[in-house]
């Protein structure tokens, strides 16, 4: 059999600082030629035959036998040892801090992970960039400002949850897998809105101090569930409606495709957040007050965000079809604001959080200035 040629093979290890002794096992193996095979008797549940469904072999198809049992408490070893495997003693701990199922779990995490993998798309391949046509200056400026805002806010939904991802006990791997897809989705959203801003004669617009403040608060959330409330329930729910608006206001098929595809991704993130909070609040109803406090602050910042021209006016211009129809655009924005608030409160209901009496968001957009006064 031909051997692999390795460059300067004779020099390898000649200056190594550490001398490694072969293990007793390897010495024995090379002396006797007899394999140990003890590992064959150290395993998890054996004889498992997962069967693929009509959509292939999905995570839910392998949740069988003992492998289908999600523990209430994550393994105390806090290592990356796969759930259900034979776990040796004295594994080095990775120091996970989210070790309770309720702290991160959502019953739809597996489903959303598989769906995310199946519904990935490419901003380079799947957007018909060739169809992009010059727009009137006011529309292009408004679209570019909107894209600037979205480029600014989207990646927080990757950066923030992944800070916690490494703290989640590996026994809840389904949640970590889902969060990884969310990070990938947000990477694509960041790239597609940046590309759109730079693809049609415009460029990036103005970054926002208030957006940055809301992102920082998400980033600094004191717990994963608190972050989920701020990020998934309010923030991403809000952006989901913006994506839907984006599909509606799209001045071209390029913009329509971008927003529609992002909308699909965002719905999964909102779905995870809602279900996680439902599970968490069921397990620990006492957390409702902490979640309410987080949402008090997040709603306040959202209201402030919608009190500056660079947030309000681009949407109104796009909704109205130009500056000349600004009033019409503001009227449409008012209708959509009601939808944002309605869907947000319905998601809170679905999560088991009675937010209605405490909600700071007025249902009437024209009352925003009263709410922030």
């Amino acid at each position, binding site marked *: 059999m031909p051997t692999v040629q390795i460059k300067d093979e004779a020099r390898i290890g000649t200056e190594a600082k550490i001398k490694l002794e072969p293990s007793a096992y390897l010495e024995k193996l090379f002396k006797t030629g007899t394999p140990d095979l003890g590992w064959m008797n150290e395993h998890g549940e054996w004889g498992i035959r997962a069967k693929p469904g009509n959509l292939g072999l999905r995570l839910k198809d392998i949740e069988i036998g003992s492998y289908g049992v999600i523990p209430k408490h994550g393994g105390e070893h806090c290592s990356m040892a796969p759930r259900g495997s034979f776990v040796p003693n004295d594994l080095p701990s990775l120091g996970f801090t989210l070790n309770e199922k309720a702290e991160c779990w959502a019953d739809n995490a597996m489903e959303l992970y598989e*769906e995310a993998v199946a519904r990935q798309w490419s901003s380079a391949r799947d957007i018909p960039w060739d169809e992009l046509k010059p727009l009137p200056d006011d529309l292009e400026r408004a679209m570019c400002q909107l894209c600037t805002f979205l480029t600014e806010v989207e990646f927080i939904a990757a950066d923030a949850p992944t800070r916690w991802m490494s703290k989640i006990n590996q026994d809840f791997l389904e949640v970590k897998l889902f969060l990884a897809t969310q990070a990938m989705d947000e990477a694509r959203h960041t790239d597609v809105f940046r590309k759109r801003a730079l693809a049609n004669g415009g460029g990036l617009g103005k970054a926002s101090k208030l957006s940055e403040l809301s992102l920082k608060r998400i980033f600094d959330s004191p717990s994963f569930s608190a972050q989920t409330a701020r990020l998934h329930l309010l923030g991403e729910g809000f952006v989901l409606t913006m994506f*839907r608006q984006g599909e*509606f206001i799209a001045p*071209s098929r390029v913009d329509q495709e971008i927003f*529609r595809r992002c909308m699909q991704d965002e*719905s999964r993130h*909102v779905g995870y957040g809602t279900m996680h909070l439902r599970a968490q609040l069921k397990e620990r109803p006492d957390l409702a007050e902490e979640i309410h406090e987080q949402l008090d602050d997040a709603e306040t910042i959202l209201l402030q965000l919608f009190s500056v021209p660079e947030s309000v006016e681009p949407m109104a211009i796009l909704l109205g079809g130009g500056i000349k129809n600004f009033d019409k655009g503001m009227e449409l924005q008012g209708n959509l604001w009601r939808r944002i608030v309605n869907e947000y409160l319905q998601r809170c209901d*679905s999560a088991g959080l009675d937010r209605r009496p405490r909600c700071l968001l007025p249902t009437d957009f024209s009352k925003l200035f009263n709410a922030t006064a």
Partner: protein
Amino acid sequence: MTSFPAPEWFLALGRMMAAEGEVFRRLGYAEVRFVVRVLDDDGKLEAATAVEIDGYALTNAFKLDGKPFDADFAICAPRAVWAEMLEEIAREGRATLRHTLSSLALVGEHLWLESDDQLREDKFYRYNQTLQELFNLSARLPH
């Protein structure tokens, strides 16, 4: 010739969906059950069809004659709104700006969604491209 919103009309779309396998595979699978409701000029229910998509296939469509059906959401619109959207699809090959399902549902005046649970209603958005491509296939039905 079958016409919207008869179950046979949706089943015909389902057959085209199967024939266009690669388009729908590229979009990714969908698992959703929904109702299409058509209202008359007075807002009264004229017809309702239950539709199921499982993976890359439209697996079932039937008339809802009081039969139990656990739908994720219902898409509701007066007949004239449905007709306008489908005529545009027939003419252009797909729903164009502001006449897509999502655009029409956004303002909620012409076409709206109904569901008991926002989480299940959100499937309309999760699978929106698939739903839109399904309706766009009606451009190829004989008119």
